[in-house]
């Protein structure tokens, strides 16, 4: 069922609004319009609808109008034109009193910097929405305590916000919103100020909550990974206009235009690790200098059974094994020249780990990372796999 419907909504800040809107129609850029009229286009001609129980993510770069758009939904910002319907009621044409009632009962907002009142305790913060609605003291206390309990913060109820970590503060922000039992949650970059691990935790909590609560959630982020993780559908904004709406799958596989494509690719590319990121310090012998005894000693010290072989300029010559070194030592050979095996796989430092993964599976020896013939490091299978798996987790919660 359709919960929110936004029809051709625009917001222009400043004067000369009609001229600015006219220029937008002529597809002039935001900076051109600002130069010509002094007006800033916040949102232009946005239309979309959100279904009940859906998490609708709005994504875009800084300044693309996300915050403006979400504030148009509860009319913290007055729209310049267009209609916003919530349960069929036109918010944009509502009287002040009616609007107040909708804000009190239907929707609550969660803020990027938490928006907690510093002079109120956590409990008093959580009670705020109920308090201004005139709910009785006992009832609002009970409800607020329940909300804090659900957030796991009841023990802190008499503390003040500045005594808490960011993650805890945002849990209170969410608890304050939920204590009101709204049908719609508006979340403006609610998790952006949190560090990656806490952020991922909060995403999980939100998804868990949503399983039981089934609120309609508008969630803003500028992080594709976050959008993909929690969004049922995603809208991408650029310079005040919505340029694509779809599920994460649709947006990834079928970007509407080049802007979306670069957006998606950018994030993808950043996800990827190179050889340089996973290589370890090489253990090697200098073929111009060291003999088999030195090689054996080094292997014992470093507990490896294989050494890289380089010349005095650290150019890679190959590798030697422990068995060969032992034989050579028995024969009292003075150098390791005769036992260096030149067949070793090398990769450049900027090669993608994903591509290396296939090679490393079939290679009996470690892979050498080489630049201009010089040995930089080696790649060991275990380390590569570990790097790939931990990184992909991090990437999901990373900006």
């Amino acid at each position, binding site marked *: 069922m359709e919960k929110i419907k936004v029809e051709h909504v625009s917001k222009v800040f400043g004067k000369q609004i009609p001229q600015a809107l006219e220029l937008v129609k002529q597809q002039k850029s935001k900076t051109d319009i600002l130069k010509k009229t002094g007006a800033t286009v916040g949102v232009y001609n946005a239309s979309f609808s959100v279904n009940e129980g859906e998490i609708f993510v709005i994504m875009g770069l800084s300044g693309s109008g996300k915050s403006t758009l979400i504030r148009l939904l509860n009319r*913290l910002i007055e729209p310049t034109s267009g209609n916003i319907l919530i349960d069929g009621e036109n918010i944009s044409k509502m009287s002040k009193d009616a609007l107040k009632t909708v804000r*009190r009962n239907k929707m609550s907002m969660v803020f990027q910097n938490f*928006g907690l009142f510093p002079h109120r305790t956590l409990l008093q913060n959580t009670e705020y*929405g109920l308090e201004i*609605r005139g709910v009785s003291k006992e009832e609002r206390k009970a409800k607020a305590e329940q909300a804090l309990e659900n957030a796991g913060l009841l023990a802190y109820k008499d503390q003040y916000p500045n005594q808490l970590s960011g993650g805890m503060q945002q849990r209170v922000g969410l608890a304050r919103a939920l204590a009101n039992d709204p049908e719609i949650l508006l979340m403006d970059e609610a998790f952006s100020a949190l560090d990656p691990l806490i952020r991922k935790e909060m995403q999980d909590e939100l998804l868990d909550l949503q399983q039981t609560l089934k609120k309609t959630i508008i969630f803003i982020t500028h992080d594709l990974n976050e959008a993909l993780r929690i969004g049922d559908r995603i809208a991408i904004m650029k310079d005040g206009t919505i340029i694509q709406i779809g599920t994460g799958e649709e947006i990834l596989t079928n970007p509407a235009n080049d802007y979306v494509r670069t957006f998606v690719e950018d994030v993808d590319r950043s996800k990827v690790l190179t050889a340089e990121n996973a290589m370890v310090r090489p253990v090697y012998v200098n073929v111009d200098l060291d003999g088999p005894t030195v090689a054996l000693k080094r292997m014992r010290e470093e507990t490896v059974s294989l050494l890289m072989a380089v010349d005095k300029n650290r150019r890679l010559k190959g590798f030697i094994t422990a068995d060969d070194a032992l034989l050579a030592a028995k024969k009292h050979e003075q150098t390791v020249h005769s036992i260096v095996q030149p067949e070793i796989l090398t990769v450049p430092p900027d090669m993608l780990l994903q591509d290396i993964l296939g090679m490393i599976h079939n290679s009996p020896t470690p892979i050498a990372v080489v630049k201009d013939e010089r040995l930089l490091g080696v790649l060991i299978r275990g380390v590569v796999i570990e790097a790939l798996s931990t990184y992909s987790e991090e990437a999901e919660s990373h900006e």
Partner: protein
Amino acid sequence: MNNFLDNLPTLPLAPWVESAMDWLTSNFSAFFGTIQKSGKLLMSQVTDLLIGIPAIILILLIVILAFFATGKKFGLATFSLLGLLFIYNQGLWTQLMETTTLVLFSSIISIVIGIPLGILMSKSSIAESIIKPLLDFMQTMPGFVYLIPAVAFFGIGIVPGVFASVIFALPPTVRMTNLGIRQVPKELVEAADSYGSTASQKLFKVEIPLAKSTIMAGINQTVMLSLSMVVIASMIGAPGLGREVLTALQRTQVGNGFVAGLGLVIFAIIIDRLTQSFNKKKVQ
């Protein structure tokens, strides 16, 4: 060129102001008279009440207040004890009480007018653009000038003294209230709005509590400014320490003038530190 300037007729601003004053005094004389009479009565009752309390008890009360207000430190308490004993010793106790009444009334009136005015300014940019230049005007005009309308409206005595002090001391409270409310972080105002607060809920539950320390700083300045008007107001017959200073000045009695002036300084320091410590306590 000079000729041309000299030939311009003088703009009759002074006569205009004078006739406006005449009009006000003649048309509202009953109103001003009532204020003068009831104000005088009320203030002399307060002064009598203060004088009626045995000095030693009042001194001890202030010392205890200073001790607790400054977080159980002895500094201000000791200073108050010695300072007030000194004033008493110099035979200036009654004058101190009169000055207290004057400062008390002008501060309270300034606060009662100033805070709502500051709130109005913070809510309406139009109000701000009208009130701001008025405040600048009020603050840059020398305090003496306010004695003229004060005398015209209320004759001489403590009431015109309070009137002149209020005009002189009002601006900081208004300004700081405006500033404090405008400085409340945008996100917190949005939070209050997004939960459907009415304007007054937002004001009393969010904006004023958050602006409190700024407003208190303004009140502190207002109190100090009204204290600084004490000597000036004595020129139109306001009683108190200021009158002692003025008399000494007129008779060139350096010693007496110094003692009365010192009394004022002691009083000012006590009041300043006390109001500041209230502010600090409330912020926590």
